[in-house]
């Protein structure tokens, strides 16, 4: 098990919180909430160790487009980068609807 923490600048606030996914094999859970300090913060708890660079790449790409001031907690059970990106997009979508 490994914890990864990353911070990103943000341009706009997030209207509401959203929860998607499940901590099941090859999947992950995303808890996305408005961040109180105008910045974005990500905490990843993952069952697979040694993929810090891959996590940073996926999150860099997500925040290049998302730009919301969100506190995101990810509980991961071996999801592939593609699945991680889909779940993040799904959570972002859920805050807008």
């Amino acid at each position, binding site marked *: 098990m490994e914890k990864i923490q990353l911070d990103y600048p943000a341009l706009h606030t997030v209207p509401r919180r959203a929860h998607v996914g499940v*901590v099941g094999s090859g999947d992950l859970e995303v*808890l996305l909430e408005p961040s109180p300090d105008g910045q974005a913060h990500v905490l990843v708890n993952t069952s697979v160790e040694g993929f810090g660079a891959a996590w940073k790449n996926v999150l860099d790409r997500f925040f290049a487009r998302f730009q919301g001031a969100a506190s995101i907690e990810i*509980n991961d059970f071996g999801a592939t980068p593609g699945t991680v990106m889909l779940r993040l997009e799904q959570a972002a979508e859920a805050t807008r609807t």
Partner: protein
Amino acid sequence: MNADAAPEVAEHRDYRRFLERHSFIEMSARERTRAVLDPGSFRELLGPFDRIKSPWLPLQGIVAQADDGVVLARGTLNGEPALVAAIESAYQGGSMGEVSGAKIAGALELACRDCEQGRPVLPVLLLETGGVRLQEANLGLAAIAEIHAAIVALRRHVPVVGVVAGMVGCFGGMSLAAALCSHLLVTRQARLGMNGPEVIEQEAGIVELDAADRALIWSLIGGDQRRAVGLADELLEDDAGAIAAAVRGAFARGAPALERSAQIEHYRERLASIDPQQPLDGEMLRTLWNEGTAP
């Protein structure tokens, strides 16, 4: 294919009906809970953002889920106050840990208190679990015992309705919780038993039971078989609408004349009718334990 021929038209209609079905099995625990309750009435208790998770799994290097794999919601069924507890089978096999077990037991106890104070709450358990979470051992077992006690206490006031939809099924201590329910609804895909087939094969060998033989497993512990021998009350299609309607139907029928767990003599006689020296299969058990013999 000739769509004009009568048999094919019927087949075509079945195909349409199949497409119109909304699979309950494929839903997450949260989606199942919403599907059972009246539309718009879902109000989650101790949801993921409350972050009441297992304190034990991270100590063993396992990532914990924010709701510990149990969704609790209050809402209504045909306008009557209801409580739904659903187990998420994709997280740790739907296993019951200290927190997930306490969530269900606590919610049932509070529902019982509401009933005692003259405010009936209709309890529904959506069971999809391998039983106790081995990493939390005795704490999970203790919570399961509390769930059993809470079901028995609640049954004095309102029927307790259980649903086993599949594909995990319901095993271990939680199979006893299923058996304690006033009405137990199953699909053909459901399985219900104390020890799971994989556990039996691991402990007693493949000669005793081949856990990979799906036809054999379902002929012994599948939903259809459990219904046929009277250990489940209703066999349903894997359709969210049908299951939601059947849950309402079960409450409308009210409490059974005699709860399954109160029929001690009946089940003793059933066990006595089995000769352990003779090989027994699902079909023979159906003949032997014909549901028509239930009081």
